């Protein structure tokens, strides 16, 4: 892979020392494993702290750019981000190491919890705790949505039109119960076409 050389070259020209990258695909695997195991209620915040602030594998700007791309592409954001970072340093092997490290152990844990929950769900205290956690999970996702709403102000569609598309998406999904395919093919294609016409 030539990417690390390019990165180092770019940084050197900015007068900043090249930060250390992962030493090997195994290093990627264990780093992503560790940050995934710290991520209760989502991994994104931990990933930012670990990859940028602690390891210095990415600058803040690089992290934000990678995150934006991983949001535009279909698939779980944090998985896409792991794929991109792994690919940058060690190609496909690195990409799969990063994702494997992030998913393997948490997958086993969550399935063990699921199996245990099936046995213990009749206990009021267990089903109660899960109800409470479920309500919080709903709140966490709503908070993420509210935080992202601020980006609509700078959206090239203009705030009213962007808000209209967000509301229409909500209505078609929640009340009309359209399949997502229709929503993305219909509303999504329309929004992208309008955005294209308004992009210089």
């Amino acid at each position: 892979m030539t990417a690390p050389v390019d990165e180092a070259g770019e940084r050197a020209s900015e007068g900043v020392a090249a930060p250390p990258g992962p030493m090997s695909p195994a290093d990627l695997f264990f780093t992503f494993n560790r940050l995934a195991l710290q991520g209760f209620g989502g991994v994104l915040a931990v990933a930012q702290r670990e990859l940028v602030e602690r390891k210095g594998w990415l600058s803040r700007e690089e992290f934000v750019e990678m995150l934006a791309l991983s949001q535009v592409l279909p698939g779980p954001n944090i998985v896409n981000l792991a794929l991109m970072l792994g690919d940058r340093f060690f190609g496909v092997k690195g990409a799969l190491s990063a994702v494997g490290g992030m998913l393997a152990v948490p997958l086993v844990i969550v399935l063990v919890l699921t199996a245990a929950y099936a046995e213990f769900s009749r206990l009021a205290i267990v089903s109660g705790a899960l109800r409470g956690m479920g309500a919080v999970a709903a709140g966490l996702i709503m908070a993420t949505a509210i935080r992202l709403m601020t980006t609509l102000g700078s959206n090239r569609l203009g705030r009213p039109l962007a808000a209209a598309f967000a509301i229409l998406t909500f209505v078609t999904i929640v009340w009309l119960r359209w399949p997502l395919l229709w929503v993305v093919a219909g509303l999504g294609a329309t929004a992208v076409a309008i955005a294209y016409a308004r992009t210089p």
Partner: protein
Amino acid sequence: MSAMLHPALSNADLLGLFAHFLVLSLLAIGGAITTAPDMHRYVVDEHHWISDAQFSASIAIAQAAPGPNVLFVAVIGWNVAGPIGALATMVGTLLPSTALTLVATRWGQRRRDTRFVRAFKTGLTPLTIGLLIATGWLLARPYVDFSVQGAGAIALIVVSIVLMLRTRVSPMWLVALGAVVGALGWA
């Protein structure tokens, strides 16, 4: 016990489940969670493989456990058809998006300033936000009613939103708070 929990799915049903998640993988713009409403429509409303409460519990378990939230997909698969179900939903969800991401990253990296790539991002942002709100709504619905517990759930949701937006408290503590409030029978 577990045989009762996992309705026996025919091979055709399993294939249908796998195919549905393959398609959703490519539609999951803004994250896998944005396709949760359509997973709900497919496995709860249309096929009745799991209940509304089981669906919400699946997502809550994945949120409570460490790791990426996308693991809720494996839990849904497990609740629908056991280990083979988890395999079908997880591989279905990850395979297409992973392949596309690897190809598109290299392609998009060279064209990130072009008109189409920028318009694509601009146009889909409002949909991503609409889908996230829909997901939050769908997750909250089974807990919210006019009982005392319903009021407790609403309070938990509001407190979570406010603390997430106003403070830097880790979501881990909010999840723990939810567990305690719920275990006490208040939500």
